[in-house]
């Protein structure tokens, strides 16, 4: 769809605002509707919009698959690591009360960190899944190329 000027300009214009909105949803989730799950999906949709208009190859340069795939695990690690941290501070697993000087603030920090982990994993999974589906044709073509060159070598 790269030949449509309107789509191209609007996509480029919208993408940063979508990311900004995702960050707002992520870190304002304790006061209004929102949180890691929604923010992750909205964050990913900015990249998916870009990939739809400019092609997967261009989008891959912005969100390299290696980074996205590492982020899938990173989010889970942040979540589980918060639990381990609260254990190291002498509490129970995922008991955030000890993360700060008083229990209320500790809970607040814990929830923010954990939601961040959720957001990272969800965004990374959505981006990776979309790129994998969209890049499947390329994978098959590359495999066919390998197969034909092997056939040539056989001959």
């Amino acid at each position, binding site marked *: 769809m790269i030949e449509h000027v309107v789509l191209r300009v609007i996509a480029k214009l919208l993408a940063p605002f979508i990311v900004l909105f995702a960050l707002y949803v992520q870190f304002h989730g304790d006061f209004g509707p929102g949180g890691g*799950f929604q923010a992750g999906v909205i964050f990913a949709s900015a990249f998916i919009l870009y990939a739809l208009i400019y092609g997967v190859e261009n989008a891959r340069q912005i969100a390299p698959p290696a980074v996205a795939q590492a982020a899938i695990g990173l989010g889970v690690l942040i979540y589980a690591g918060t639990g381990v941290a609260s254990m190291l501070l002498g509490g129970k697993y995922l008991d955030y009360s000890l993360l700060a000087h008083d229990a209320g603030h500790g809970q607040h920090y814990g929830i923010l960190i954990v939601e961040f982990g959720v957001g990272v994993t969800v965004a990374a999974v959505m981006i990776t899944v979309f790129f994998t*589906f969209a890049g499947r044709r390329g994978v*098959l073509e590359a495999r066919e190329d390998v197969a034909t060159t092997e056939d040539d070598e056989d001959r």
Partner: protein
Amino acid sequence: MWESFLGLYNYWIVILLMMAGFYIVMSRHNLVKKLIGLNIFQSSVFLFYISVGKVADGTAPIIEKGIFSYSNPLPHVLILTAIVVGVATTSLGLALVVRLKEAYGTIEEDEINEMDAAD
């Protein structure tokens, strides 16, 4: 009569949607269609939970001054995570369908079964 209709209407629609999803999953052979049927089934369960969580005269469970009645936040939490898990599992299902298409050249279940039987 009217009151019990209004009181049970949500459940009846949930049952109807659930049965529609179930019917699509059972009777349609196209695998993509089956996945959409599963999604409808799933969303009917979501609607059921949220309907159960609604309290008349309640409001969204965000604590605010001067409001004393809130809807039940527990179903919201369960369904919120279930929706995102649902899209993750749907994408896994779609990935399986794509692999089946590559292996068999079709996404119709009966044709795949025939090919398996022929082998």
